[in-house]
């Protein structure tokens, strides 16, 4: 219906004004510019003004800690397997207390495309993407972040999940949802 | 009364008493007049069915040992009676152990066995002592050992005390246990009559079955068949009645006696004005029977017709004050504890069912539990040996017959029958 009206008004305008119709368009354009001249611009002046990104924005990668303060990463290598550009590498090792951890952990941010697949894949919620995108470096080798550059002191976006409370290694039978260890030397029920 | 005719309070029937009542005459007759094939034929004709729970025709089992099968052959008497509710073997062996010995000797003669073994559960230590003593007495009377009654047939009997656990009652597991291995059941083919103990032909029978054999030989298969009240059964049966009855005990009655008669006439009916809610007709591995089905004839065929099984003939009566979920939980706890651990359904599935029933009883169940339990019961039927399918019987019948009670547990958040202050059983 709008079309018909438009069509009618255009035809009418053409019939009525003819060449004057062009003038209307020109005046409309100028009027729009004048209108916006006195409106507040929406451009934010970065870097003086920094826009706050939502928590789930995919920026710099961190390795978080669990609520107890111990590092979450168990070097399961799932993030490195899923990474589409193979920018994550690590070596797993065993700590003195028997826990699996990453001896070294390296992300090459020159390759990273910030897709977030590693965050999705991580079973312990260790690797997370933060909204921080300001990481320009002059030397490409400086974009090679080691574990000490990635490991942070807080829990990141999840403040309650501790994978070690759910897995079966470590001290047996001490976790919620586990029975005390079986004594195999007795046949009594 | 056939099997328990020599029953005396507080002691066994001695060898002399047994002989006086006609004992060991059948053995004499078999050794002197009959050939092994004749004995097999008589037992086959008599329709004797295994009394250990499976109900397999004994004569057909004996025929499974070919005359040219390798020797030595073994005969195992299964006195590992651990089916809940069953105590007939204990009663039988406390009444007349020589009956069982004679049955073993005749069966051994029929299949050519030279070594008999009585497998006794550890709780029956007294019975093991009694048997050892009586075997020694029989040996001195030339009834056991080399050249029995100067007939040329030699058979020795020894008593083997089990190391424990219910799974040893299963035939192939029992054979593994006697050999000193872990008591896991074995796959049949090959059958134990072909490759049993030490890979040699072995005949394995419940002691009650063996106790029937002398009577068949002494009085003839027709007489034995005529003892039963139903056309499909034969002989008498030791029915154990327990539970909420006034006179629990072991009663020898003709095969095919209606269940109602067993419970109300011989068992004395339910105690003090209670009503019968359900009963297990043949031990723990059978389905619950509802009060409407009480007129069933208690023999193998009769119960099979209504979708149940005779099992060991141990009648457990539950009254209207019994919580069916709690009763089933009790049974499943037993079965999950006694699983040997070989196959997944029994080892894990029974635990699954137990955990769900415990929560039902405790009150933390959710509405999908009955469906999960039904699935579990169905899956339990596909296990390696009959333990898990047996455990599935009470579970399935709970969901079939007492679905409302189960639902009540969920709705009310706990057992509706639990008295306040009562501890969780």
């Amino acid at each position, binding site marked *: 219906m709008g079309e018909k009206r438009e069509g009618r008004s255009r035809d009418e305008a053409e019939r009525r004004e003819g060449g004057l119709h062009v003038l209307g368009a020109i005046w409309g354009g100028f009027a729009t510019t004048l209108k916006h001249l006195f409106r507040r611009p929406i451009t934010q002046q970065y870097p003086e003004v920094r826009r706050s990104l939502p928590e789930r924005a995919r920026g710099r990668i961190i390795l978080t800690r669990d609520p107890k303060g111990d590092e979450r990463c*168990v*070097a*399961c*290598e799932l993030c490195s*397997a899923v990474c589409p550009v193979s920018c994550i590498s690590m*070596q*797993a*090792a*065993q700590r003195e207390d028997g826990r*699996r951890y990453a001896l*070294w952990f*390296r992300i090459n941010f020159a390759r990273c495309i910030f897709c977030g697949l590693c965050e999705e894949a991580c*079973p*312990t919620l260790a690797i997370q993407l933060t909204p921080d995108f300001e990481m320009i470096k002059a030397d490409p*080798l400086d974009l090679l972040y*080691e*574990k*000490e550059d990635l490991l942070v002191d807080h829990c990141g976006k999840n403040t309650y999940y501790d*994978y070690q409370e*759910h*897995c*079966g*290694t470590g001290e*047996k*039978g001490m976790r919620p*949802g*586990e*029975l005390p*260890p*079986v004594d*195999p*030397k*007795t*046949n009594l029920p | 009364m056939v099997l328990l005719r020599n029953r005396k309070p507080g002691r066994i029937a001695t060898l002399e008493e047994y002989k006086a009542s006609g004992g060991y005459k059948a053995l004499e007759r078999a050794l002197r007049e009959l050939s092994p094939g004749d004995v097999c034929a008589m037992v086959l004709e008599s329709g004797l069915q295994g009394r250990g729970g499976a109900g397999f025709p004994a004569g057909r089992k004996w025929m499974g040992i070919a005359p040219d099968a390798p020797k030595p052959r073994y005969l195992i008497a299964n006195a590992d009676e651990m089916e809940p509710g069953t105590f007939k073997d204990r009663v039988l062996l406390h009444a007349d152990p020589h009956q069982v010995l004679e049955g073993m000797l005749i069966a051994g003669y029929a299949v050519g066995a030279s070594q008999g073994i009585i497998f006794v559960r550890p709780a029956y230590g007294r019975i093991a002592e009694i048997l050892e003593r009586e075997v020694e007495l029989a040996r001195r009377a030339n009834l056991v050992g080399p050249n029995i009654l100067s007939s040329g047939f030699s058979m020795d009997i020894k008593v083997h005390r089990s190391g424990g*656990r219910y799974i040893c009652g299963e035939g192939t597991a029992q054979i593994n246990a006697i050999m000193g291995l872990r008591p896991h059941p074995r*796959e049949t083919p090959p059958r134990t009559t072909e490759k049993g103990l030490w890979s040699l032909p072995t005949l394995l029978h419940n002691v009650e079955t063996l106790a029937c054999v002398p009577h068949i030989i002494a009085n003839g298969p027709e007489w034995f068949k005529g003892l039963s009240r139903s056309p499909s059964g034969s002989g008498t049966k030791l029915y154990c009645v327990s539970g909420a009855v006034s006179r629990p005990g072991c009663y020898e009655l003709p095969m095919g006696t209606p269940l109602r008669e067993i419970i109300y006439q011989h068992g004395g009916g339910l105690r003090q004005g209670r009503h019968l809610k359900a009963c297990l007709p043949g031990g723990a591995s059978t389905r619950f029977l509802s009060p409407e089905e009480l007129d069933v004839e208690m023999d193998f065929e009769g119960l099979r017709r209504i979708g149940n099984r005779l099992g060991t003939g141990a009648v457990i009566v539950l009254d209207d004050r019994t919580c069916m979920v709690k009763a089933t939980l009790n049974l499943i706890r037993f079965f*999950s*504890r*006694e*699983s*040997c*651990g*070989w*196959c*997944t*359904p029994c*080892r*894990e*599935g029974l*635990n*699954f069912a137990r*955990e*769900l029933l415990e*929560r039902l009883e405790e009150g933390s169940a959710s509405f*999908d539990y009955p469906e999960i339990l039904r*699935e579990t019961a169905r*899956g339990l039927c*596909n*296990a*390696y040996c009959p333990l898990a399918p047996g455990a599935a019987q009470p579970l399935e019948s709970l969901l079939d017959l007492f679905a409302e009670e189960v639902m009540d547990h969920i709705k009310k958040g706990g057992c509706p029958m639990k008295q306040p202050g009562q501890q969780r059983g």
Partner: protein
Amino acid sequence: MPRLTIDGQVIEVPPGTKVIDAAEALGIVIPRLCYHPALGPAGACRLCAVSFLDGPVKGVLMSCSIEARDGMVVSTEHPEAVSFRKQVIEWLMMNHPHDCPVCDEGGHCLLQEVTVASGHCRRRYPGPKRTFVDQDLGPFVQQEMNRCIHCWRCRRFYQDYAGYRDFGALGIGWRTYFGRATSGVLESPFSGNLVDICPTGALTDKPSRFMARRWDVERAPSLCIHCSLGCNVTVSAHLREIVQVEARYNGDVNGHFICDRGRYGFDYANHPLRPRSPAVMGEETSWSKAIAQAVAGIEEVTRAHGPKAIGVVSSERASLEAMVTLSLLCEETGWEGPAFFQDEETLVKNRLLAQVALSHGIAGLREVEKADLILIVGTDPICEAPLLALAIRQAWRRGAWVGALDPRPIELPLTFEQSGLWDEELKKALLKGAQREEGLEEVLPGWKEALDRSREIVVILGPTVVDISSLRRCGEFVSKLGKKARIFPVFRGPNSLAASALSRESTFRSLARKIREGKIKALLLVEADPFHGTKMRGELEASIRSLELTIVIDYLPSEVVKRAHILIPSATIYEGGGSFINQEGRLQRASPVHRGGIPLRRNLQGNLRPPRTFAKGPPGETAKSSWQVLLELGERIGKGLGIEDKEDIWKVARERFPFLWQVEPGGRISWEGGGVQEEAMEEEEDPSQSSQEMRVLLVTSTFAGEELSQYSSKLDPVRNEARAFFNEEVASQRGLRRGDRIWIRMGDVRVPFSVKTSPKVPSKLLILDPGNEGLWREVREVSKTIGWTEIERA
């Protein structure tokens, strides 16, 4: 041949095939956990359930336990079967810990695969998980019992298949625990197979724990070269080091398993002192400089003394390509050699053994498994070729009779007769056995009866303990056996048969003689270490020191490498691949696994992280295979062989060496044996022996004494100390008991030993096993006899 229908496809299979294997032949893989082709069906996991819709059996049944029969109609996708399988997985997941991220099996876990295939994702079981405390099962197997799904495979392998009893099942039901009575090292030399067999991460490989994920490693099929059996393996490499060796299935050779020596003996390739860069007079230099120096040295010696002044030595562990190139090069240049064996006696024995075996029909491991009667002469299977013991056990499980004639106290996981005969007594027994009707009944009770009822006979023969005439006698004895008696020769090295075929008359001893006489001035050693297993260290050192030029091409940090004038590192089998001919004459090829180079772990920087550099390639030059080095040397000295690559070698080799003609990889060579003259050589006289002296026999053990595995640090925890085996009576007469410690004086050195006694050891014999000491670095010479005056209590 039963004909059955599976999922609509018809297949005909040999009788006795189980339905699960018939489906696999069609490409349908039915999920399974407890079924293993070597261990047979168990019916324990209940996962292989399929629906039998029609035919002799009906219903949902286990496909691993049911044999295929005519007219069966099977559906693997029937809803009943699928839902039952899903239920089984749900039950297994009830107690399974949430371990996948920290579990080594992730990525090659059978349980992971069947669980994902079943679609299980929701946990309906509300109860707690059962837990177990783990045991320390030794240096090879890591236990994590929480993850166990009770498939019973480990127990079935360890006790039923392999025959060892210290590992098994404890407890009952859901609490069944698979472990030892107490923590301790697993006694079986096949314990590493538990790692391959376990379908979950309950038993994992300890030496490679946490090293790499399966999807990250470079994997290739290769061969185990630690003995002459030639078992097939799959080798994984990660970050420039070899990480794990697993068994590879070969129906004709090793079946599904390998021994622990082959599994954990690979670490010589990662040895920290392994020669990585060329060296001249001990100083590292570049490749071109080293080659130039070598060429210059060779040309100088040739100019001054002629080509015969250069001796060439290789060994039984060199690849076929290296051996062939070396032989061709020696022909071209006129160098003296190549010498593959230590001395003439060894050479003749190997040739004779090969000839005897081939003339009677050579047996491989499969023939051993199918035999009814097995006679072991002069071989200790567990020490020399461990997987042979496993094959013998399978035959024994089927009812075979096993007897052994060997002076060592042989241990086998089965019951067998043994007579401790050696030397003269052995010859006499074999002679009598060949002549008399009862055969060996006198020394091996039960022989006659076993011989009468057996159809397939295998005689296992090894050259290390018996002498030449005993070998010949044994050959005659086997001919008398007639029937279907075959010989299973056990050689010392992985390529001994090829070495026998390619060997000329030179041996290392003859070259050493020529060095002493001054005829040989230079020595080229290709993948050889004459110091290994030598009984005359003093002489050897003197000879090598007197040489003008020693060029060593090798990859081991061996003793001769330290004494080399010019060292050129070569590639191991993992980097270069190689072809080997195993004891039954089967030609097998190993593929290269990785490029090589210095392992990353040795290159980590201070803060334990990899270097932060841009680089074109990995650090540490990729070593070349020894045959490539030889070709280059040949080119440079003007004796080019016209060979460009491996295929060229094969072309030329096939033309020049008839035993390689018409053999395909995986097939057996057809070699007549290459004439061993009847008079061959004068046998060395048995040394005169007083009653105060005992003859010495040097032996090896499973984890000590084999050249390559002695450099593997993974085997350090299980290497035995030096042992001396005495005859029980003789020992007790002298007041020695098992476990005592003694010193034996050898020359001017005292060597410690632990005393072992056995009634099997002949009373005039003293058996010495050097164990983890190698052959005693300071001992100049191991004499043939040792007197009681040289033995003292410690």
